């Protein structure tokens, strides 16, 4: 069976799960205060950031620090519970499927869900940016290419985090602990981000990346300078190791 088929099957399982609302609603909530407070983008001269940059970065920061990781945690619960509820996993594993491929396809779904949410984020950015621009009589929208580029970077930076959450969900069968671990790991990311060892904590990558971008946009605002070493190799290693362990352990209990 081809991998595409696996993905197709996984997508079918998401029917009537209402997960799409859990992805869309926070993105809508995110931009509402940005529209209401759009006049505040003009008070940021001290930081040396332009109003349009500020409008963009505030929204993306709000998304990256909490909602992005939290959505992934909710996604893992969705994937795990749909299999367990009706004993679906038993059925799946009794069919000629490769557990590792099944695991990988579920991980891909998780990535897809985040991807969908980022797409909504961009769409809502343009929508709310247009409204705010009308309100302020000033063009608050950035060049679409820049926006898409930053969104892609944000998305890619979330992949290691997603793989960690997925590994937790695969290894820890008790939802209390897997979900608890997921939620609890989000909170200290702000603290850890400020330490030298931030790169070993994938849950803070998306927020870190956006904060770096904020530093680049705000001339008088001193935050982090992005260094690709040792971040990139560590992030890649974390991702690969998590996916591998998850694939090996997937469905062990049922098999």
């Amino acid at each position: 069976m081809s991998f595409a088929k696996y993905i197709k099957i996984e997508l079918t399982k998401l029917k009537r799960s209402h997960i799409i609302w859990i992805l869309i609603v926070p993105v809508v909530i995110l931009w509402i205060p940005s529209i209401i407070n759009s006049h505040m983008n003009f008070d940021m001269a001290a930081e040396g950031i332009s109003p349009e940059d500020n409008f963009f970065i505030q929204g993306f920061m709000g998304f990256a620090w909490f909602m992005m990781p939290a959505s992934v945690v909710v996604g893992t619960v969705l994937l795990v519970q749909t299999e367990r509820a009706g004993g679906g996993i038993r059925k799946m594993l009794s069919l000629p499927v490769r557990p590792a491929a099944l695991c990988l396809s579920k991980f891909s779904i998780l990535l897809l869900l985040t991807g969908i949410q980022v797409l909504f984020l961009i769409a809502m950015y343009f929508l709310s940016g247009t409204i705010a621009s009308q309100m302020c009589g000033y063009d608050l929208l950035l060049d679409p290419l820049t926006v898409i580029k930053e969104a892609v970077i944000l998305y890619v930076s979330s992949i290691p985090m997603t793989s960690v959450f997925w590994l937790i969900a695969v290894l820890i069968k008790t939802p209390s602990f897997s979900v608890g671990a997921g939620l609890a790991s989000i909170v200290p990311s702000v603290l850890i981000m400020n330490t030298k060892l931030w790169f070993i904590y994938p849950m803070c990558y998306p927020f870190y990346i956006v904060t770096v971008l904020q530093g680049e946009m705000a001339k008088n605002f001193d935050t982090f300078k992005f260094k690709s070493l040792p971040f990139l190799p560590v992030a890649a290693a974390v991702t690969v190791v998590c996916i591998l362990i998850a694939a090996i352990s997937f469905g062990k209990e049922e098999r």
Partner: protein
Amino acid sequence: MSFSIEAKKVTRTGFYPAIILGGIIAAAVPLINIGARPENFVNRDGSTLAVILNANWSMVSMLNVFAVILGACVMWNVEYGERAIEKMRTLPLKMSSIVGLKGILLLTMALVPVILEHLSIVLCGYLWFAPESNFIFDATKNFIFSILMLLPVCGVMTAIASVCRNMWISLGIGVICVFAMTIMGGFDSFAVKIFPFSLPMITFAEAGETWPSYGTASLLETVIISIAAGIIWKLKVKSE
């Protein structure tokens, strides 16, 4: 009696250990945060309690809210998992009393992290600060206030999770509400601050002289939520 039944139902689900563990982690936050760099904190303006809370309470209270969300999800996941709730409905019980007792159980368990956190705050005070004479008294006041502030979120999460067959939906709604709270945090208005998910973030010192307003808001919200939950369940039972 019935309370002990609700308490029994969640055994072996990780409900108790997860909340206790969450409490230990939350209690560790001020110890690690201040312990790692006490020089950053000891000379700050304000009372010992205020300095400790300002540096940690937003994180700690967020963990508390997460514990409440998770606890509510797990309590109801058990009911829906193997259709246990359908058996419950064939017994001479009122659904509203199950919902109410679960809310009380959740609040009772939420006390554990709050107690641990306040012990940790007091410990921080004595380890790295020179606490004022009223430090313990103020910490106690903050402790009681924190519990009061947790009432609505316990109620609202119990109510939400009670009507969600699927755990990811109640969890999703819970985290979206927390998210909305973090986003709205920028608005300095009473109406935003008394949102059930925002109340636990407020400290007694921050409430200051307006603490009775927050207390009243919290109690009022809890009453409204309880009534709403009762009505929702009545309608739900009727519609089936």
